[in-house]
């Protein structure tokens, strides 16, 4: 084998290892609120939006607060510093990307940096209205 080819292979191997290590150290896990609080890291939490009537958006502060129940049934108040995301009302499941932060009030709270909403697809639309009086 030519030396240049060996160098190339070594370079590619180093690149792939570096990529793999870096990717692995950057990935998070699907966690729950308790472990997220303990670890203090940014995590993915898949859960369900509960107590919907207690959710609120404060347009002045640009803060949307709502409750999420994670897979272990922990319920936590989530702070999201943006308006309510699109599709949120329809979401069957929400995935929060975020972690516990200290607010200016001094309290710790779960702050979502990003929210992924999973909605029932159009394909699952099973409601065929017989008479649409309200149109």
């Amino acid at each position: 084998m030519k030396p240049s080819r060996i160098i190339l292979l070594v370079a590619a191997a180093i690149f792939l290892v570096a990529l793999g290590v870096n990717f692995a150290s950057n990935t998070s896990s699907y966690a729950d609120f308790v472990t997220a609080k303990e670890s203090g890291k940014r995590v993915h939490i898949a859960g369900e939006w509960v107590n919907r009537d207690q959710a609120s958006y404060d347009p002045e502060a640009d803060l949307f607060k709502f409750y999420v129940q994670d897979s272990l049934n922990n319920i936590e108040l989530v702070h999201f510093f943006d308006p309510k995301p699109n599709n949120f009302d329809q979401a069957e499941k929400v995935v929060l990307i975020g972690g516990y932060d200290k607010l200016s009030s001094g309290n710790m709270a779960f702050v979502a940096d990003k929210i992924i909403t999973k909605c029932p697809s159009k394909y699952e639309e099973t409601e065929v209205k017989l008479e649409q009086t309200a149109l």
Partner: protein
Amino acid sequence: MTGGFAGEMFVALAFAAALVAMVSFVFAEKETGTEAKKWERLGLGAFGAHIFSILGVIVTLFLLIYHHRYEYHYVWSHSSNELPVYYMISCFWEGQEGSFLLWCFWHCVLGGILMWRLDTEWRNLVMATIASVELILSSMILGVYAGQGWVYGIYILLAALPLAYAGYQLWKQTSSPQGTSPLNGAFHLGTVMMGLIVLAMIVRGQMGFYFDWSITSSFDSFSHAIFTLLLIGTAGYASLFGVSLRQSGEQAPQPADIFAGLSMLAIALGAAMFPADLWKVGSTPFVMLRDALPDAEAFQQNPDFIPSNGTGLNPLLQNYWMVIHPPTLFLGFASTTVPFAFVVAGLVKRKYKEWIRPATPWTIFSVMILGVGIIMGGYWAYETLNFGGYWNWDPVENGSLVPWLVGVASLHIMVIYQKARTHLRLSMILVILTFLLVLYATFLTRSGILGDTSVHTFTDLGLSGQLLVLCLVYAIGIVVLMALRWKEIPAKVDEAKVWSAEFFLFLGVLVFLFSSAVVLLSTSLPVFNKIFGSNVAPPPELQYFYYKWNVWFAVGFGVLSGMAQFLWWKKGRDKSVVDALFRPFVVAMVAGSAVLVALFYYEMEFAYHSKAQTLLEQAGEAGFAQALFKYIEFAFVVLADELLLFSAIFSFVANLDVLISMVATKKVKLMMMGGSLAHIGFALMLLGMLFSSGYDEVISKNLTPDQLNGFPEQEKADNVLLVKDKPRYIKGYEVTYLGRKEAQKPVKDIQVIEENASAFKVSFRDSTGDVFAMVLPRDVFLKKEEGESVIHPTSDRSGSMSPDLDGEIDMEYTEWFLNTNLKYLRPKHINNRVLYGLQFRALTDSSHKFVLYPEAEDNETMGSIIAHPSRKVYLDRDIYVHVSWTPNDEEMEPKYRYHDLNLKVGDTAHIGQNTLILGTVYDLSQREEMKKFEIAAAARMFATAGSDTFYADPIYLVSKEGKPGMIEANIEPLHMSMAFVGINPKDGSMQFQIQELLNPDQDMVVFKAISKPWINVLWLGTFILTFGFLLAIYRRVKG
């Protein structure tokens, strides 16, 4: 009902024809002489029939959508009455079935061109490969349901027998030493084809009607007639063909053919009675709504129910970019099949070198179209979605980016081969990989496997197994073929010189491959999770992860593309490389430094510099090993953007230099400039991305920190609340919310788009051309019987008469009504959209102002507003504005509180924060204009709010006849309205009614504004890149 039947026939025919075409082309390649010619003709004919059938499917589906045939599930779930014709075409790509159809369509177009243009050397195998892809793709829309129960097993067996027999005959004839009788071959292929059609038809439980005769309501006599005719035709086909064979003197296998026809007839009639859905192949776009959703309440009550309106096209797709972006992207996908087909042909025919030349223009074409398609998608996202950018690193976007990156790599390896005759195997591998990655992307996006990692919604239509098979068939097949031929493929072990164009080209290829590896790795995470049963989530800072890796590939591209282009054209000149590259290098350093100084001067900060700062802080706290990694990462992050700036400018200048010297020496024609132009375009795109994404800035920073109650320190408010007519300042502008954009009189083009027994919905165009829609009660607007009363606009239409449900809506009256009451009706734009007028006035130049209309759409199916941004486009940047929050209609309704007061002169009362004082009451009855009243009195009412005092004079009147009346008075600043309603004769106290508006600032909006510098450089670069590709294709086709 018959429309869907025709569609299903076309699908089945397309599937069968693709099979025939594939087999025929393979035999045409295998045979020689006149036999081959005959096979070839059969193949061409069959592919022609396939093209015809696919067009038939598309036309049928379009007609169903066009005629609002909501008894079909696809039409119901993807379109609606509101949909303009030009968006109906978008219905094709909202559903998976439609997008498979689109993909098929492009293969047909490409296959048609190849059949026509390609010489016979390549045609057979290339077409066979394309037909094989078409076979699988059309199976995706077959919607065949295979059997249930033992009865079904028998029928399938019966159907399979003639197929197997015909197949056996084919095999026997082709492998016999005398060769094939093409007519016989055609006959058996025909049997296979017809057998498949019948199979497809009968095995399906849902064909537009159940075959269970007891459900007479859903049985359609016309469909039945066609079905019967088709069966008779199929059965007769065998004997007729047999006769013609005998007459032509060729050997005809008679008994088996008659058996074939009869058994088909038998299974058709028998199996038809047992609908089943044990497992299905494909998902047809022609399934009836009641068959798709048999449990829906509506069908329980009325099996014949047909909805009067569809659920509509996703509003995000109702954008002109969505009319052209998906077809472009799918053309890009489909065109990767062509170079792949050439590789297959080259491998099979052992023409390992020759395939590259005819395949190259196709590779350029697919890279060009795929690139344009991706950018169009980005532009659509930028214009329609509100995430504030054109690229989100979503798995769906990555799915098409990865094949593009590998495609670019394959193109360059092919170019290297043509110059230096090296890397033949690698060029094959990369072309194959591009195609496989397109299949893989399809699998990712359509199988539902992406799950939690994508914001896009995907549903498994039950096709994931089929998609996986599609990927594996090609992956395994091509690996086996490649392995068989590996040793034979010439591999020239010739070292490229270090300072040669090929060397830098090869490094460039590596850069693109590494980049694609990064994107592919993290996009495939859900697949790894599935395979290994793990539960790993993608990096929380996904954008940053992609950035920190890919920015270095971009730097690599800049440097390498500049050097490679230079060496490519300058080779053999006197100048040394260092001399030649000196000028672009110096220009890049000077220009780059100037830009850096300008950035510093304007205090523009790169998006990830704060990230670097965080890394540095973290490193201080971490242990040695971790700290080391953090420092390394810091160094990488802090240097990357400056280096990208320099290298992109270097690439731009070096390529421009090459271009200018070409023009100056007049040695090279325009068509040779494709490469330089493409690289210039890509360098500009990188600069555009660096600035628009790295130096973008939220200018709607909330400048009043006292409003940021409860904010964590690191968070800042990027959204600003505007109350109507109250200006606020953001960076560089004063912004005023002018209110919603209302319909302007006169309205025209009134159309009823939906109606039922009690209400109807009209759409109309206002004087500015905007389209609005609203719902009106039906009975009020019905046409009156002739003679019952004269239709007069002002006549009272409401009330007494009983609603005539069958009546026609009086359009004339509706138009009059809308025009008269437009101000109060306040209709929304069609699809429940509201446009919010935001006026921007530049702080530096108050004469410079503009109004933007970002939209918010109140979407019922999505359950919340969908914001569409609006932009002010400057040459050097965009101001990108979208609505983030709006009060809903209920909150917009004015809310009042009423207070009844009993006051004497000098009394005070408290209304909310304000204090009211009844100052004095004076008699007006002596005044000339008040002479007609018995009593006319005015009260001087003072209202104090803080340090301000206002007054108003409500008036109390009693006519000569003793009828009371009043004139209200308002205090606008306090949102109060007062009525003087009576005087108590006993104690002389006076009664007042105060109306207090509780939500005076109800018309408001929260918005976000982002400045995106140099974004137009990105779009400009795209145009130049595409133009460069076009020149390169032209040169290779002509030259």
